[in-house]
Each structure stands twice: as structure tokens, then as C-alpha cells.
């Protein structure tokens, strides 16, 4: 169904005519937006899993969330783009401000918040019924954004380039996304998230299902993107947190008590000179 357009797309880009249409689209404020969580708590049914979490995620910064499993990092991340409320029985308190505006305020559309705050999941999940190119532009199709064919070509190439995938897939944009390897699929998901021009990109353990080489590529991608969007990444890998992030927050939860942030600050300081003894223990791998 899409092969005809994809072939045309390949043809034109192979000729070297990179579409100028895309770059003329008004770019979002480069560097992303400031995201602030203020006194966030979260419940699943009667159980409280997060208590009073406040964190500021400045633009053009990579924030790493670290901590043992089950302490509420994913929950926190999902609160940041209103995915949390899609779970039946899930509730929350507090505010999440995007450039100063509470995304949970009455009158705010949930779809708008999610579009401005993109998300990449732990398990790569390209849409199986769409081609690679269609996957990239799926966010536009899903949010009723019309785009001309020429712009679409440029957008596909631009996003795949930013996600570091273009060279690997430029000859098979019409193939289904599922033919790619796990690492490539994950970068396709990043490209897909970038196509709707989010101001913040949330990543929940994006490399935990991947091999070291793919992990490396994604880290490079994150480094390149960090000047363009605000990035929040959950990771279990201390080295990774160290490599990619400028600031970090350690989440901990006592047994059967809700989780929260124990310490946050510049990554360098958190790793080399932590204030809280629990941080030192965790970073050194003494528990968790």
C-alpha cells in the first residue's frame, strides 16, 4: 500500500535532493522546555507508590533517574506525560509543569501534553502494521497533522538521521518495522517520538533489552539530541547514567513504603561525592 510512495521517497533522496520543505517548518524552541515535577505522589488503587517527589528538569539537559526496581521510577516518568492515568485505578497528586504550565490543569487536553512530551519505552514497540517510513510519521497521522508528501520525505529522513538510523534503513523504508533488529527498532521508536517535535523526551530503560553495541548507538543518539530536547532517562546502568546525563536523581523506596527521591544533583557530584550515605551505597553497588 505504501510501497509506491516509499519508492518515490527513496528515489528522490537517493538523487540527493533533500527536501527543503521540512526545514522550513517552524522548529520548536531548540533545546526543549523546562519540565518541573512539584510534590508529586502516586497511587495504584489504595497503595501509594510515590510520595512527594519534586524534580526540575531544565532544557537541553539529560536527567537520569536511577534506583532499584520497584521504587517508582517508571511511575514517575509516566506521570510526566500523563500516561499514568491510563492505568485503571491509578491516581496522583501534585503538579507537573511544562514551561510553567500545569499539564494536569482542568482544560488541558491529555493528547496535547503527550504530544509535547514524547516517550520511548523499555521494549521497542514499532507498529507492526506499518512500514518503517510510516512508523516514523505515525505520530502525525495519529494526531491529525497533515503534511505534504514532500515534507513527509524530508521529515522521515531528518528524524531517522537524528535517531542515527537513516544510513541503515534508507534502502528499505517500505519494509515493516519488525524486520529491524532490536536496537534498530528502538532507534526507530526514538525517530517516531521525534517526528512530532516534542519538547521533552522521556525514556524508560531504553537500552535494557539491547546488546552493548546498540546501547552505544543509542547513547550517542541521546548525546546528539540533548542539545535539542529535554531528556529524562531511567536506567539501571550506573555507567550509562554517568556517560549520558548531566544531572541525576536517585529513587529509593523502603519496603512497603512509597518511593521518593533520596538525592538529586549534577551527575558528577552524585557519583563522586554523594551527600546521602544511601546514595554512596547504591552507586557503589552495595545494595539495590
Amino acid at each position, binding site marked *: 500500500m505504501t510501497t509506491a510512495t516509499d519508492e518515490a521517497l527513496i528515489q528522490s533522496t537517493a538523487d540527493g535532493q533533500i527536501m527543503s520543505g521540512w526545514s522550513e517548518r517552524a522548529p520548536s524552541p531548540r533545546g526543549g522546555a523546562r519540565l518541573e515535577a512539584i510534590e508529586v505522589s502516586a497511587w495504584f488503587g489504595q497503595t501509594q507508590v510515590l510520595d512527594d517527589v519534586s524534580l526540575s528538569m531544565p532544557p537541553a539537559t539529560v536527567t537520569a533517574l536511577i534506583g532499584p526496581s520497584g521504587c517508582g521510577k517508571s511511575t514517575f516518568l509516566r506521570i510526566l506525560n500523563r500516561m499514568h492515568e491510563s492505568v485503571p485505578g491509578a491516581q496522583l497528586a501534585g503538579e507537573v509543569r511544562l514551561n510553567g504550565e500545569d499539564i494536569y490543569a482542568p482544560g488541558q487536553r491529555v493528547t496535547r501534553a503527550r504530544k509535547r512530551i514524547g516517550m520511548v*519505552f523499555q521494549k521497542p514497540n514499532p*507498529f507492526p502494521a506499518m512500514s518503517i517510513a510510516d512508523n516514523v510519521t505515525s505520530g502525525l497521522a495519529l494526531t491529525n497533522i497533515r503534511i505534504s508528501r514532500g515534507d513527509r520525505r524530508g521529515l522521515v529522513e531528518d528524524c531517522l538521521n537524528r535517531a542515527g538510523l537513516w544510513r541503515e534503513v534508507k534502502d528499505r523504508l517500505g519494509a515493516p518495522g519488525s524486520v529491524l533488529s532490536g536496537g534498530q527498532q528502538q532507534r526507530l521508536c526514538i525517530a517516531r517520538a521525534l517526528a512530532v517535535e516534542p519538547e521533552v523526551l522521556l525514556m524508560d530503560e531504553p537500552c535494557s533489552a539491547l546488546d552493548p553495541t546498540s546501547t552505544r548507538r543509542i547513547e550517542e543518539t541521546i548525546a546528539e539530541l540533548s542539545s535539542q530536547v529535554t531528556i529524562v532517562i531511567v536506567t539501571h546502568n550506573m555507567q550509562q547514567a554517568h556517560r549520558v546525563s548531566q544531572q541525576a536523581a536517585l529513587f529509593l523506596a523502603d519496603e512497603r513504603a512509597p518511593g521518593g527521591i533520596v538525592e538529586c544533583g549534577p551527575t558528577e557530584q552524585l557519583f563522586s561525592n554523594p551527600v546521602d550515605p544511601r546514595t554512596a551505597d547504591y552507586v557503589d553497588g552495595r545494595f539495590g
Partner: protein
Amino acid sequence: MTTITSAPVREVAPPVGRRAIPRKVQAFTFDDRLSLFGSLASSFALVTIGYDHLLDTSGIVGFLVCWYFVFLLVYAGVLSMSNTRALVVERLVTATLYAVAALVVFALGSAVLYTFFQGWHAFVHFGFFTHDMSGVSPTAPLSQGGILQAIAGTVIEVAIAVGVSLPLGIGTAIYMSEVGGRWSRLVQTVVEAMTALPEILAGLFVYVTLIVDVGLPKSGLAASIAMSVTMVPIIARASEVALRIVPRGLREASSALGASHWKTVRKVVLPSARSGLATATILATARGIGETAIVLITSGASSFLTFNPIGNPMNSLPLFIYTAYTTHEPVAIARAFGAASVLLLMVLVLFVATRFLSREKGVAR
């Protein structure tokens, strides 16, 4: 036209000298083969000699059954000479399972082939497909009359039934699995219960309400309505299953991109479940095509071609087969088999379509 030259495929140079050939593991050894075929042959010989004398009966079925049991005995004996007990059991079970598989496949194959074989008498007459039976007596030779009215009736009735039950069935499935709400458990329970409704009862229901009480004539539409009563629950349930196995992650990915719920369902969930939905629909359609009890009760049987499903009786293939069968006239039964072959062909076409769709899914995964 493609402008991409495919990436040069690098030929793997054949290794010089000894080439690695995959070994056969778990092969059936010569010894094994010998004991299998030896037992088959010797039991065959034994039964051939003993069958008529020992058991005072006749018939090919009895012979095969006896041969099989004697074979099992002989085979067990032969195997236990040089094998452990576990292996003997294993081989006997294997032999039994192969026999069962052959029996089931044979039963299915015989039903299909026998129908086509008997239908052939009618198939050689071209008019069989292009004429109706109006003014032709059921005992007239096969060169007269045909089953066009039944083919048209089946197509029209099933088309209406699918047209009604597809949107309702899939809509209900979407309600149950995507939208949910206070009533969705109840809908689920009732829909599941209604899949147990015997088709004859659906027919009788429509007959009593629409034809006897309201006074509508027997018609193709009445049959379609009764078919829908049985098809909606089937489609709804099968579609719900197809929707439910769409991974949650895809829905989340879609809403994380800022898609509305409707867009998520329309662009992500339904396309991902496409092959499952198509299979559900096609199987329900096949079921509708072969539904005899309903048309028997609700549609009446016209001998002439009609495209009007509302005001008049309408024939259909299963109904034609059944009425022709009840005459017990050889010619009519030949016509019945001709119609049965057409019916089977329709089902086969749908079946191949289903296979094709589910194969496509296999590639995409």
C-alpha cells in the same frame, strides 16, 4: 520500476575440500524400518488368511480394524526383542497416533472428495450453473434446470447477514475490549452465552416473531436476520480475542505520541488485529453459508431465480440440498450433490482466503 539496486549479495565461497553436511540426528535406523514394515506385512498376511475364517463377518472396515490390531501386537513383539520397554511404548504410541491422523485426514478427505465425485454428474452440465428450477420438475434430467436461484439466494442472504453482523460484531468487540465501562462485563457474558444458541433456535425465533406474529412472508431477509443472530456473537467474541492480543505496548506507544483514543483504535489497534478480525469474519461467513437449519425454517424455497430478499421466498444452497435429498429421487440427489459441491467450493475459497490472510500475518510478525 525501482531505482534501487539491491545491495550486492556477497557469495560465500564454498569451503575448499570437505564440505560440512548436516548430520541426520534421531534418524530412523534400518533396523527400525525393518521391524515396522515387517510387522505391517506379516500382520497383513495373517489377517488376510484368518479374517474370513475366524470372524464370521465381512466388510473392508472390519478388515482394516483387525489388521491394525494384529499389527500392533506383532510390532510390539518384534520391538520388545531388542528394545527397552519405554521405547516399545513410544513406538506403539507413535504408530497409533499416525493411524489416528490418517483416519481423521481420511475421513475429512473422503467427505470432500466424495461430494465432488458425486457432484460431477451435475457439474458437466453448464446449464446447472446458469438456470433455475422454475418449471422444471425435480425428476427432470440433469440437463434441464439448475441451481442458479440457490447460488444467488445464498450469496444474497449471506451478504446481508455479514453486512449486518460485521459492524455490530466488531463494534461490540471494540466496546468490550477497548472502551469498557460499567456494562462491558454483562455484554461479555451475554455475548458468550449467545454463542451457545443452537442455530435451529435462532431460526425458530425469527419464524415465530417475524413470520407468524408479525405476518411477514418467508423470505431471504428473514433468513439473514436469523443468521445475524447467530453470527454477531461469534464475530464479537472472536474479534474481542483478536483485539485483546494486540500488545498493550502498542496502545501505549500510540497514546504517548499524543493520539486520541479513537485514532489509537483506528490506526494502531484495528490494523494490528487485521488478520485476526478477517479470520473471525471469514469463519463466521463460512458458518453462515452452510447454515441449513435457519434457511429451512425461515426462507421458504423458491424454484425461480429472485434477487429480492424481502417479499418472496428465496432458495439457497443448503436448503436446495436438503429438499432435493428428501425426494429420494436419484436425479434430485445428483442435483443435491452438485449443489453441495458448489457449497463446498464456496467454503473452500473462503478457507483459502483465511489461510492467505493468516500467512501474511506470519511474515509481518
